[in-house]
């Protein structure tokens, strides 16, 4: 699957290639510099996709995986892009692991906590990120991948194992639920 990465990491790309080369030879300090430059990006993606409870662990998993795969980084893409793809795979893998357990808890119950159109609830106008975190899993994942990360519905469908029509309807659902937080 060829993924189109629309949002490139905007930190330290100038030194990434050299640090990646050093890290691939076992230079921990170089790898730590890479971590420092990219952890916010990876952790934010993990947090938005899986929730805060999983984000720390998955972020660590992603960087540990990156360490093992550094030998395969040829510098054809920016290191940030390479790392992002790798991290997204780790995140999707974790999502699949969590899927069965999470499906047991019907997402509809979460909807009860979200404001309905025409029912402004000022106390819920918390920051947008927190409101997003409270969306049902399916709606949140599509919103993150489409509106935050810039993927197309066809790509999202492949990543999440759904059809593009479901991706569209979940996106609309997420936006409808979130709009009250910005009213």
């Amino acid at each position, binding site marked *: 699957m060829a993924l189109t990465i629309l949002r490139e990491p905007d930190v330290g790309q100038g030194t990434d290639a050299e640090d990646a080369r050093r890290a691939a030879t076992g230079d921990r300090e170089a790898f730590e510099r890479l971590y420092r430059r990219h952890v916010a990006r990876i952790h934010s993606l993990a947090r938005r996709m899986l929730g805060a409870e999983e984000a720390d662990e998955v972020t660590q998993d992603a960087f540990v995986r990156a*360490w*093992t795969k550094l030998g395969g980084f040829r510098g054809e893409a920016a290191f940030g892009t390479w790392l992002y793809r790798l991290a997204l795979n780790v995140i999707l893998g974790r999502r699949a692991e969590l899927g069965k357990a999470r499906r047991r808890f019907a997402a509809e119950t979460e909807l009860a906590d979200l404001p309905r159109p025409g029912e402004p609830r000022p106390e819920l106008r918390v920051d947008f990120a927190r409101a997003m975190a409270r969306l049902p899993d399916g709606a949140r994942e599509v919103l993150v991948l489409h509106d935050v990360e810039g993927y197309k519905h066809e790509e999202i469908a492949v990543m999440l194992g759904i059809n593009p029509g479901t991706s569209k309807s979940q996106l609309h659902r997420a*936006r*409808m639920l979130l709009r009250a937080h910005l009213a």
Partner: protein
Amino acid sequence: MDAVNETHDRWTDRLSDYLDGELDAAERAALETHLASCRSCAVLLDELRAVVGAAAALEDTPPERELWPGIEARLSLAAQAAGAPLSAAPEAAGVISLAQRRRRFAFTLPQLAAAGVALVALSSTVVWLVTGRMSAPATSERPVAVGSPTGSGPAAARLDAGRTGSDARPGDAAASPIPPRGQSPAPTEARVASVEPPPTGAPVRSGARFVRAEGVREADAQYDRAVADLQGLLRREQGRLRPETVQALRKSLADIDRAIADARGALARDPANMYLNDHLAESMRMKLQLLRQATALAQS
């Protein structure tokens, strides 16, 4: 529901598609006609547009807690487990992800349990061979084989059979990757790291291939303290491991303990037996290594 509302709802559901440019030209024109006459849809469209804008404007933020030490610990742990130096290239270090590690840990412990069983079997076999073919020399001195806690080499601190006091390898401990005593940050680590072969100056009865009981007792005590520290730590932290992992861990430790007991029993009858010394050293080293891995996992 009247026809006007039906039309309204139909378009409401398409507003996101409209925003994303997913409508064909005819649908787009029809929706724009509707928007011109439907204020609620126009308001809703603005709200959805605001959501899209807010999502795109989200900024990345770092984790609230520092994650690097955990990552680095996992790299080190895997490097040690793989027997690679800490600065080894990533592939050589054999690092596995935490998720993989969970699976692998659940998978590896039974393997270790099997290894423990193998040790028991080996021990029994050796005991049978030894007791069946040899008569144990009478001695009150207890020989010991003390393994390096990190297991950097095979039976890194085995009994110095055949060496005299002057060539009892004082450099062995220094050559070990274990940090010098007292320099390790964690008390338990320091305690474990302090486990080393019997004092290099301890007299060794070269012909008998075992060291004096005094040095042996001290080395034994150090080993026992290290094991006790790790077991205490593991008891406190085991709640962070999965129950099946804890169960497998207990079984493995029990198997290894049996192997150690068997080896010690056999050595009581045949103190000079090199095979038994090596076997005991390996069993003890294995126990320490398993405990260290388990506690590191629980704390990571």
